[in-house]
C-alpha cells in the first residue's frame, strides 16, 4: 500500500502502458509515433522502478534515481532518433517506416 493505493494498481497501470507502447511500436507507421511509443515503454518501466523502490525500501532512493537516469537517457536517445528521422525525411520525403527497408536479404 502506497498512500492507500495497493501495489497491484500501479503494476496494472504500468503493464497497460507497456503494452500500449509495444502495440504502438508495432502498429504505427509513422517513425515519430513509434518513438513516442518507445517513450511509453520506458516510462512504464520508470513507474515500476519508483513503485518498487517505495514498496520495498521506503527509506532509500536508488530506484528513483534509476528512473531519473532513464529519463535523461530517454531524452538523449530521443534527440538521436529525431536526428535520424530528419535524415530519413531528407532522403525519402516522408517518415513512413515501411520505406526504410533497404537492409534486407
Amino acid at each position, binding site marked *: 500500500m502506497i498512500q492507500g493505493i495497493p501495489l497491484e494498481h500501479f503494476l496494472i497501470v504500468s503493464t497497460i502502458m507497456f503494452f500500449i507502447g*509495444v502495440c504502438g*511500436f*508495432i*502498429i504505427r507507421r509513422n517513425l515519430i509515433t513509434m518513438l513516442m511509443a518507445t517513450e511509453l515503454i520506458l516510462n512504464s518501466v520508470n513507474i515500476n522502478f519508483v513503485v518498487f523502490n517505495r514498496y520495498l525500501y521506503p527509506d532509500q532512493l536508488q530506484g528513483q534515481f534509476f528512473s531519473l537516469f532513464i529519463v535523461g537517457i530517454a531524452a538523449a536517445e530521443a534527440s538521436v532518433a529525431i536526428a535520424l528521422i530528419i535524415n530519413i525525411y531528407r532522403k525519402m520525403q516522408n517518415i513512413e*517506416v*515501411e520505406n*526504410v*527497408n*533497404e*537492409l*534486407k*536479404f
Partner: protein
Amino acid sequence: MTGYTYTVFIILIPLVVFLITGLLGMKWKPIVSGVIGTIGMGISWTLSLITAGSYFFSGNHAEGFQTILPVETTWLRFTDTLHINMGILLDPISVMMLVVVTTISFMVHLYSLGYMKGETGFARFYAFLSLFTFSMLGLVIATNIFQMYIFWELVGVSSFLLIGFYYQKPSAVAASKKAFIVTRFADLGFLIGILILSFVTGTFDFGKLTEPGTAIFGSAASMSFLGISALTWAMTLIFIGGAGKSAMFPLHIWLPDAMEGPTPVSALIHAATMVVAGVFLVARMFPVIHFQAPAAQEIIGYVGGFTSLFAAVIAITQYDIKRVLAFSTLSQLGYMMLALGVSGYGGEEGLGYMASMFHLFTHAMFKALLFLGAGSIIHAVHSNNMYDMGGLRKYLPITHITFLIACLTIAGVPFLSGFFSKDEILVAALNHNKLLFAIEFLVAGLTAFYMFRLYFCVFWGKEDRHYHHTPHESPLVMTIPLMFLAVASIFAGYIPFHHLVTSDKIGFASEMNYMVAVPSVLIGLFGIAMAWILYKKESEVPAKLAKSWGILYTATYNKFYFDEIYLFVTRKIIFNYISRPIAWFDRHVIDAFMVGIGLTTEKISYQIKGMQSGQLQHYAFMFVAGTLALALSMIYFLM
C-alpha cells in the same frame, strides 16, 4: 677416428653442383654445366680413391677393419632414445661403394659430354646426374637405416627424372612412371620393415644392429605374427624394398622399360649403381638377416637364383641391344643376391658375402662398359635394334675392342675380373645349396651365349650392310671412359677382396677351386661357341631354331607376359573390383554427404530468407512474440 672428415666433401660436391647447374644452368651455354659437373665429379672421385687408399691400405688390419664415423649429427630428436642421425659411416662395403659410385659416375659424366652433345636439356641432364650421384653416395655412407631410407627415396626420384628425361616421348614418360610406382610399392615394404625393426630393437643405427652378438634382439625372439618371428617379417619386408630397387623377380618389370632413358643414365643408374642398392642393403643388414632371420636369407637366395635364370632366358630372345643388357643386369643382380643368400658369417664361411660384393664391384665396371659401348654403337648407328647392325667392327674399332673385353669378362673367361667374382659365387653356392649351384652354373653358360649373340650380331653378322651414313667412331671424350673401364674390367679381378671386404671385416685366405672353375669356364666357352656358330655369319639357322621352339620362344620373347599379367591384375582386377567401388563410395557416399549438408543449408536459407524483410516492425513483432512465448513457457513449465 679423425682424418676422414674430408669424406663429407665427397657427397657435398655433387649436391653443390646439382644446385648450381640446376638453378643457373639455363643462363649459361650448356657445355658449362657439363664441364662443372664433370670437374666436380672428378674431385669427388679423387677424394673417394684417397679414402679407399688410406682406409684399406694403411695401418694394420689383422684384427679386422674398423667402422669409422667421421661425421655424425643428430638430425631429428624426438626423445633421448628416439632420434634420427645423419652422418657418414665408413666400413669396407661403404668405402668400396664410394669408389664404385664415383668411378662410374665420373666416367658417365665424361662420356655424356660427347654422347649428349647438342641435346636439348643438356644442363638439366647434368643437374640430374649430380642429384643422383649425391643421393647414391648418401645412401651408401648412411649411418642408420632411416638416413638410408631418405636417400633411397631420393635415388628413386632421380632415377624417375632421368628415365623420363625425354619427356616428349610417351614411352619414356610411361617407363618413368612405371619405374617409380613399382619401386615405390616395394619401398612401402621397406618402410614397414624399418618400423618393425626399430620397434623391436629400439634403434636405427647400423652400428648397433650389425654388431655381432649384440643383445638388442633379446626381447625380439618372443614377438611373432602369424607364427613367424617379427624379425623375419622385418627382414623379409626390408628385402622387398631391396628387391624393388634391384629389380628382383617379381618386381623386375620396371628395369627393362627404364632403358627409355639416355644410355649413359642406363649405364650409371640401371646397371652399375642404383640397382645394386638392394644388394647393398641386404649386405648392410647381413648380420641381422643371417643370425636373426635365416628364413629371410633362404628367400633371398632363391629369389636371386630364380631371377638370374629367368632374366638370362629372356635375354636370349631380345633384339633391342639395351634390353639384352638390361636383362643381363637382372641376371647378374640375381647372382649377387643369391651369393648373399647362401653366405655364412665370418672367415671362410662368409665367402658368399665377399663374392657378392666382389661381383658387385666387377659387374659395375663391365656392365657400365657394356652400356657405354652400346651407347657408342647407338650413337653411330641411330638404332637400338641389333638386327639393324652388323659388321661394325670395321667402323668402330675402339668400341669393338672394349665391348669384346666386356663380353669376355661377363662370360667368365679366365683371368678377367668376371671370372674371379663369378667363380667365388659358384663356390659359395656349391658349399651351401646344390640346387642354386646348378641354376647358376646353367646361367653362366646362358650369359656367355646371349652376350656373344649380341656381340656377333652387332660387330660381325651381315658384313656388307649399308647404313644411311657411314658409322664413325665416337669422339675421344666417349672412348676414354670405354678404355678406362675396359682396363678396370680386366684388372679388377686382381684386387684381393677376400682380405678387404668380408662379412666380419677380417680378411681370410681364399683359394681357387678348380673343381668349380674349370667346368664354369668350359660352359662359358661352350656358350660363346654356340653364339659363334649361330651368329657369326648371318644365317637362317637362328630364325629356324626360334620357330622350332614355337610357343616357348614367343612366351620368352614377350618376357613371359609378366607386363601383361601386371596390367591384367592392376587394370582388370584391382581397378575394377577395388578401386572403382572405393571411388564410387567416395563420390556417392562421402562426397554426397558433404554436398548434401551444403545443399540442405542452402535450401533452408532460401526458404527462410524472406523473414529478413527490412521491415523494422516485423522484427519487433517477432521479438516481442518470441519473448512472450519464452515467458509463457517459463511460467508454464516452472510453475
